[in-house]
């Protein structure tokens, strides 16, 4: 059976096309593009909340999008144990909805950060099955609020329940620091307890084509399909 997926577009989303191409090229299945005002989602295996500046980041990044009409069905989709992936602004939206714990605050140097970063997997889940232990992935980040924060109790539970999917690390020959944005324990991506929802700041949809500097972003979709 072919893999079906969907990408939600909010006003101000700017990685929706990138996510659509990423899914089309890697899943070879049907990919829907859903406008935020639609009331329902088609039955799909994976939904991506893409990056961008939904609603201009007004109020707080992701806050307005979390109240969009389509979100009810996104929550239903996740409650049915299907996959939900939030990338960058999508991760921020997931924390605003409350599907993921913690919050994304401004980067520690208070500046937007657009560069290649390096991550590796921390705990195993269905999104990172194809990634080896200690394998370093090179994937771009582009965010102003990517600094993952939560209280100690939440952090302990994230660890106890093995919800940390990715953490930032140092790349070979790179002279930049390990924890690029100041996240607690260098967290780059987390899942919910059931591990069918992943939020991550790096953009795997910008690292999969032959001409990209890295193709490591493929591994996430490959993990879900195989």
């Amino acid at each position, binding site marked *: 059976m072919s893999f079906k997926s969907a990408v939600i577009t909010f*006003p*101000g989303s*700017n*990685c929706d*096309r*990138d996510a659509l*191409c*990423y899914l089309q090229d890697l899943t070879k299945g049907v990919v829907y593009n859903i406008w935020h005002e639609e009331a329902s989602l088609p039955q799909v295996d994976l939904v991506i909340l893409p*990056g*961008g*500046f939904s*609603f*201009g*980041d*007004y109020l707080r990044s992701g806050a307005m999008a979390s109240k969009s009409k389509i979100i009810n069905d996104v929550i239903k989709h996740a409650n049915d144990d299907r996959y939900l992936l939030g990338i960058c602004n999508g991760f921020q939206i997931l924390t605003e909805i409350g599907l993921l714990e913690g919050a994304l605050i401004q980067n520690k140097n208070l*500046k*937007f*950060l*657009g*560069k290649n970063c390096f991550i590796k997997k921390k705990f195993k889940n269905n999104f990172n099955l194809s990634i080896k232990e200690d394998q370093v992935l090179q994937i*771009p980040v*582009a965010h*102003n609020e990517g600094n993952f924060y939560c209280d100690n109790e939440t952090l302990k539970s994230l660890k106890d329940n093995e919800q940390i999917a990715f953490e930032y690390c140092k790349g*070979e*020959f790179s*002279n930049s620091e390990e924890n690029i944005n100041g996240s607690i324990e260098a967290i780059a991506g987390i899942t919910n307890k059931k591990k069918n929802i992943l939020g991550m700041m790096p*953009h795997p*949809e*910008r690292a999969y*084509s032959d*001409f*990209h500097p890295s193709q490591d972003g493929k591994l996430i979709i490959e993990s879900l399909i195989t």
Partner: protein
Amino acid sequence: MNEDLILQHGLTLDEFKIIKNYLNRDLTMEELGIFSAMWNEHCCYKTSKKWLKKLPTENEIVIQGPGENAGIIDIQDNDGIAFKIESHNHPSYIEPFNGSATGVGGILRDIFTMGARPIATLDSIRFGLIESEKTKYLLNGVVHGIGHYGNCIGIPNIGGECEFESTYGFNNLVNAMAVGQVQKDKIFYSKPKSIGGLIVYIGSKTGKDGIHGASMASDVFSEDDEDDKRPSVQVGDPFMEKLLMEGCLELMSLGLIESMQDMGAAGITSSSVEMASKGNVGVLINLDKVPLRQPLSAYEILLSESQERMLAVIDEKNNLKVKEILQKWQIDYEVIGEITNSKRVVFESNNKKVVDLPVDIIVDDAPEYDREFYMPRKRKGKDFDFSNIKLEDIINSLLSNLNYLDKSWVFNQYDSTVMGDTVKEPGQSSGIVKIHGTQKVIGATTDCNPLYIRINPYEGMKYTVAESYRNLIACNINPLAITNNLNFASPLDPNIMGELVLSIDGLKTAAEKFNTPIVSGNVSLYNQTNEIPIKPTPVIGMVGSNQDLKKINSNKFCNIGNKILILGKQLEKNLSPYLLQDQNLTSNINEYNDLEELDLDYEKKIADCVLKMSDLKYIMSCNDISRGGVFLSLLKMQYKDMGFKVNIPDPIDLFCEYSAGYVIEIRNEDLKNVSSFLSKNAVGYFEIGEIIKENIEINSKKFDYFDIINNYHNNFEKIIN
């Protein structure tokens, strides 16, 4: 009308007399405002027009030359590339964040107004010396503003330049360039098609921001002006622009629009006058219908430069459909007037005609000046004393000079990979993006050598164009066309006017030789504050293409053991202006030797060889040689654990500037083929050394590899903080 009022509107009394004689009546305040906006330098090019006419603007690939919102070239199949550069200098000095942000917003609108989807931005920014706190404030604000706007709307920033020099201390420069992709059969122009078409207002509501922005941009500043002028700076909202862009592109793709014009400088005045003039028609607009953010007078509405607004002409039958689409994007939309056959621009407010002017007088009768200019004086030759200059000292001085260092602090604040088509990110010899869904790529670069142009405006401009050309060639990108941004001080000074005239002449000569016509551009004059004129800064934005992204050259070393070759002609020490300036051998502009004449035939011949050797896969990596010479070029090529060792009779030559200069990396086994290829083409080369692991060696002397690399990459951030 009283004289003070006329002068405050930036018109001379002579100019006012022309208008009055033509109309044979007194002007309304609104009409005075219109002439103030339309007859200033920014809108009507009254000083530069005579000279700009000399530039080559056409060839077989030009679809649209200067005169529209952006120039467009043909890159085969059904693909066109729209691009333009524009300045936002004065606003960025008064309010760096909003000034630079709206500079990006404005240039993006110029691109999507033509039906093109923006696919890349670049910038060219110049500041005073970093020792000044003001410079730090401006640098932070400008970079933040450019990033904020481009990142939010989601267009990758793929390159640019950033220079620090004393004359920009009180007059920083911010030039933003945008590149867009359009289907050749779906280009939109500002010319309306039919009488009776509805004029519609699309986008943000109109507020007080930016009133008199265009005439401010044509003023000489004094330092204490800053606070007074602040209300003239526009405030940008990139979220609104993203909605506007998607909304307009959707309307255009459905063919619901006849023509479109961005409300940029001089807002609704300029956009409606230009529409009328292009179509040889008239416009009738009811200002009471304009969506407002706050109560405004007719005069204020006419001159507001509120951002994220468009004027379009539609057929009445499409009105409902247009409204529906724009509602989806939550964009304000209002029918405010119609196209008439009167050939007059008429604005009504409160059932009264507040403006009723023939289009002719505003556009065709706009003043054009033939200002006096001086030719530069002949330069006396001078020998500089290099005997006290040591190799270590030069290297250390480069590594503590912002102009040479890795500028990732700047471009890491920009999103350069959004849209997923970026092939080469900033910091390399040119930025490259793929045309979505094809194997074709577009390369783009921005450049200027103000010091060269001050020494010799004609030759200096040739060097500037050649440097852009080399930036593209080094990547195996075929250079196609140019956009330019002529930033100068006051043209009322005949010396400055001479620089303007001669550099345009240099641009013409080089562009003709390279077959790279000028398809769009912008002029920014009066860039001087407190009597300090900026160095002449005519910035070149050059665009090129390659049909196959697999053929693109790397600008970074590929393999240890590979040979390093130099192509081109080195300028002697005494003739390398940046070397002399940056090693403190002179600070007096009169002391420099004249520039060596740039041989454009030779430049082209070497470039053709580089392109051919790239296609033959002889070139493993390549970089052009510019300020900082071969040494800096090698440092830029350094990658992973690779370093280099070189041998050269006089090591100071490593820092000299070049014409047609390239560093190329080739495999040992290709050396013979490369050598015979070059000799067949009668091109000399110099085998200077090879790539080695974790070392930098010059004439067998070892340097601290990690120290140099780390300083090169990290010192920029240390120095500016």
